[in-house]
């Protein structure tokens, strides 16, 4: 009886833990979709609502980096002015639950915007978001985005020598 009770309790705890991880994954996935929708609408207010009160950001273009909602809001406003047609498309997103109130998301995206020469550019980008649960909602605490680096040639030491003539 005792063993059965312990086993049942362990199973309940295990199931509850798995359910929480599953919840975090689906909740964070929904959150990142909401972030993308706000970004594509260029709705700075809705975008800022996705962030925790003290966000940090590390962004792709010219190494922009900063902290705080006011700085991030100014960044987004400037970005939307400079690239008024920019949109993002989420290609894939992995959520790694850390604990009940922390999760990391890793995303592969395609950013589309008009370049300085007037031509449309679609650039593959990476992102990682540290999400924290605040008042029952997942918010982005640290946001890091970067361009996908082009494939690198092997270093010289690994290049096979040219065959002798």
């Amino acid at each position, binding site marked *: 009886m005792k063993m059965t009770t312990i086993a049942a309790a362990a199973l309940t705890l295990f199931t509850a833990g798995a359910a929480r991880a599953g919840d975090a994954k689906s909740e964070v996935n929904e959150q990142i979709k909401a972030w993308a929708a706000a970004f594509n609408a260029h709705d700075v207010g809705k975008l800022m609502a996705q962030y925790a009160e003290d966000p*940090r950001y590390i962004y*792709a273009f010219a190494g922009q*980096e900063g902290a705080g909602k006011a700085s991030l809001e100014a960044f987004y406003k400037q970005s939307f002015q400079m690239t008024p047609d920019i949109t993002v498309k989420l290609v894939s997103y992995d959520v790694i639950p850390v604990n009940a109130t*922390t999760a990391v998301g890793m995303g*592969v995206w395609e950013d589309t915007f008009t370049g300085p020469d007037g031509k449309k550019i679609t650039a593959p980008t990476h992102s990682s978001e540290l999400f924290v649960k605040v008042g029952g909602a997942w918010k982005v605490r640290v946001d890091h985005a970067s361009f*996908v680096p082009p494939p690198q040639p092997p*270093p010289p*030491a*690994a290049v096979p020598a040219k065959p002798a003539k």
Partner: protein
Amino acid sequence: MKYAILAMSMALFAFAPAARADATADAKKEAQKVADAFIAAVNVKDPQKSVEAVLANFTEDAQHIGVFGRVHGKKEFMQILPKAFADPNRSARLTALDAISLDKDTILSISHFDNVVTGPDGKPMPLPLRCTRLLQRQKDGRWLISAEHTSFGPPPPPPPAAAKRN
């Protein structure tokens, strides 16, 4: 009793900023240790030993996104790193580090590295990198990297000058 609870609440409120500062200082100290170990490992000249030393700082299922694409776990790292670490000019130096304590077993570090790699002309080329890392304390007390994002980018801007007091 009511006053005791009130006094305790006030004490907790009064000490909360100090506790936060302590947590941040501890987080930074632990993140610094991991970053130093990582840098020392990258700078090991022997490529195989370097890869082994670098991966000793990661959990088995560590996730990476960034300069190496999308990497899931040490097995995938082992497919990628030996080629990258074969570069004879490879070196790294930590230039900035910040850390956020998320809970007693979890830290988020934001760091900058000055890397050197072989450029297309065969000469050493600087490669500044930004790096966000999730560090998790293991059962044996070690802090290991469980997730990271590395990207090319310049070093962080200098901190703003202290405001002038009138």
